[in-house]
């Protein structure tokens, strides 16, 4: 089975939220309440236990590339966010039960019949994607439509995207296509375009990567994410040192040396 993933080209996103709706509907997720945030057109705010696709709306007082806007120096960026299915996933590496697994499509999947709701993955994810649903007690996130992939179908969000902003496919091929798209945009004057996550060193790549035109922070993405496990060796070493010190201290306290 080849590695599958998403390439989300934010320059094509029109903010229709068909991906959010298709994801909810196909996966039969409950609603998150109907609230009005007043933050541009964004009323879902963030990915969560029952929101597996989320469209961000960024309003900027500056024009984009060679684009001409009736509003003058203004641009409206939209990005459909999703679980990144990191090549090295913080959630998976921290999961104490083995509920989080890597599938044959190289996606990261939570097994709902195994998860005991410890909540460690929630804090381990460098992107704030996975979350625990409090009345359910377990952690949930995007499955890359595992059931649809099994039936040789495209994930619901990519299938419903009317502008091909969300592209699903073979990762090797997607990366080539994404690189070509960046070059094309640069040729056409949108020199800000770059790929986020195609080769993210901290996670050894993201299986869902993005084409962005502003810095990651503007989209609520971390500029330099890292799987926590890669940095924690130092903690284990210092634990070992402190353990020796504590044993010595206990002996010294008892013998009075």
């Amino acid at each position: 089975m080849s590695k599958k993933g998403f390439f989300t080209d934010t320059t094509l996103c029109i903010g229709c939220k068909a991906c959010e709706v298709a994801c909810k509907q196909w996966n039969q997720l409950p609603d998150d309440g109907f609230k009005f945030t007043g933050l541009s057109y964004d009323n879902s705010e963030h990915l969560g236990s029952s929101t597996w696709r989320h469209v961000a709306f960024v309003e900027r007082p500056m024009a984009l590339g060679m684009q001409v806007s009736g509003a003058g120096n203004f641009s409206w960026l939209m990005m459909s966010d999703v679980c990144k299915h990191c090549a090295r996933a913080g959630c998976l590496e921290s999961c104490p039960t083995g509920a989080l697994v890597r599938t044959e499509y190289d996606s990261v999947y939570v097994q709902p019949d195994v998860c005991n709701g410890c909540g460690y993955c929630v804090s381990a994810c460098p992107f704030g994607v996975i979350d625990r649903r409090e009345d359910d007690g377990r952690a949930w996130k995007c499955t890359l439509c595992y059931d649809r992939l099994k039936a040789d179908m495209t994930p619901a969000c990519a299938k419903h995207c009317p502008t091909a902003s969300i592209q699903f496919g073979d990762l090797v091929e997607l990366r080539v296509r994404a690189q070509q798209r960046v070059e094309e945009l640069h040729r056409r004057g949108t020199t800000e375009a770059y790929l986020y996550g195609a080769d993210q060193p901290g996670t050894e790549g993201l299986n869902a990567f993005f084409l962005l035109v502003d810095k990651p922070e503007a989209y609520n993405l971390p500029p330099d994410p890292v799987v926590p496990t890669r940095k924690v060796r130092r903690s284990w070493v210092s634990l070992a040192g402190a353990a020796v010190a504590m044993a010595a201290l206990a002996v010294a306290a008892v013998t009075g040396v």
Partner: protein
Amino acid sequence: MKWHLSPGRNRDGDGRNIDESLGVLAGEGAHQDVRETAGKGARPVPEPKERAESTADRDSYYGLPMLKEPVWKWPIPTYFYVGGLAGASAALGMAAGRFGGPELRPLCERTRIIAAGGAVASSALLIWDLGRPSRFLNMMRVFRPTSPMNVGTWLLGAFGGFSTIAALLRQKRTGLLGPIGDAAAFAAGVAGIPLAGYTGVLLSNTSVPLWQGARTTLPPLFMASAVTSAASALDLCTLPPAAQRAVRRYGIAGKIAEIAIARMLEREAGVVPRVIAPLHEGVSGSLWKAAKICVVASLAAGVLRQRRLAGWLGTVGSLALRFAMVKAGTASTLDPRASFEQQRARLGAAEVTGPAPELEQGTAVPAPERVLVPAGA
């Protein structure tokens, strides 16, 4: 708002819009239990501290948190205290049993009771905080060294077994059972030492900016605090003079280490001011300050041989320290700029991998002033 509710028989109002007489619930999220309707079961995005009305500065997304708030409630910091207390007690008990004379036997017995009681209480607290407590044994269906929580579960399991045997056999000194009890107490001490500090590794192994930023000093801090906790609990027990002296030495050294390491932690995490901010302000800041004051006061009381006072102050201080650390970490996840600034200061992946190409290309280019070109020109 009846119109968006499902007309299905058993799923009234779960927000799925599926009529079960017409549709089948088989989706990937179909078995997500909904007990609270209108989205109240899902955790809401917390109201940001610095909410922005627009994204004009592009430094954050309306100030909304980038990370998810930790889900842990009060049982977890309480466990950090109780587990540390049990582990450090067992360690002192091990040393007293192996290197101490018969005059320290009451100390051995007391530490065995504290260790076993702490192990039982720890397990209860941990299971209580699970989203699905009935599935707690799933923690032991794998061995996963990349997950400090999994390693800790095995450690606590082993510790619980040894310390319980040691506690049950605490009054047996001769025959077959005496040496078994002593061996179990020794094994509990060996397991108890890492048990007292792995919780620091557990917190470090997250994306929480404060905990990740303090990852060298957090495990030793928790171990020093565990020594304080154990000595303080033993200070509150009736013990013969020889045992009191051993506990006093243990406590004084633990408290000095705790104060010194807390200072080092402030320096380690303080490289990025926003990351350390929750240790200086708000509820977590007050708790952190209270913890430090209590430990210093407890140290003074210990030096002046005021056992009971030192015991109470040390206990309160250790508890406050764990709550301060958990609360401050939570606060640092709610501030998206804490992570952003930490990673921009090359303390993200760059620390282990060298700078990310995206970080260099995509962002180093400041968006230039653009000349508008009319369409078709």
